[in-house]
């Protein structure tokens, strides 16, 4: 399946793009997506362990299985307020 990933803040700056598409096998988990994203954008490595992944506007655990059509976002820890 093809998933569109939105990138924000320092993740966007390091990847030099606000969105990208990743090709993932059916049954791929959030952990798989994280690995694939870091492979595609090695410059995200410094953020690696702190990189948050959200699916359909919710924070998700690493073992969650992704579905085609999900809105996936990737960003560093938030700092609003």
């Amino acid at each position, binding site marked *: 399946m093809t998933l569109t990933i939105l990138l924000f803040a*320092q993740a966007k700056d390091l990847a030099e793009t606000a969105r990208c598409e990743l090709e993932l096998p059916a049954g791929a988990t959030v952990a798989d997506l994280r690995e694939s994203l870091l492979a595609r954008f090695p410059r995200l490595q410094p953020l690696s362990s702190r990189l948050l992944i959200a699916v359909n*506007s919710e924070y998700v655990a690493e073992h969650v299985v992704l579905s085609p059509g999900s809105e996936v976002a990737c960003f560093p820890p938030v*700092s609003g*307020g």
Partner: protein
Amino acid sequence: MIQLTHEPIDYQASVERVRSHSAGAVLLFLGTVREMTQGRQTLALDYDAYPEMAKVQMQKLEAIARERWPIIELEIVHRLGHLELGDISISIAFSSPHRREAFEAGQFLIDEFKKVVPIWKQENWSDGTKEWVHQ
């Protein structure tokens, strides 16, 4: 009511909207752009957001707070874009029957907001550098 805006925040309008005859207490928390952070001087802040998710998380935050405390009316507004020194970045206004729950709820709302709502700020330091803040 929750809102993201690129305009200056009208906190008085929020306070007026949350006032109620059922309330003995109204609490307003404002976050403002501070000049000095750990000895470094800021000129301005730029706030970026993932607006769709930010709204979902803000609504969840409101729902959780309403479950825990007898909040009567609540408004949370966060400003995005370029903010100068002293500008208001966030306004949290709400009313409650009694004062004690107001302080508890207020502290919870701002603490949780800063953990879960996908908004990021970038420091414009006085030395000309820019830096994303990741607390």
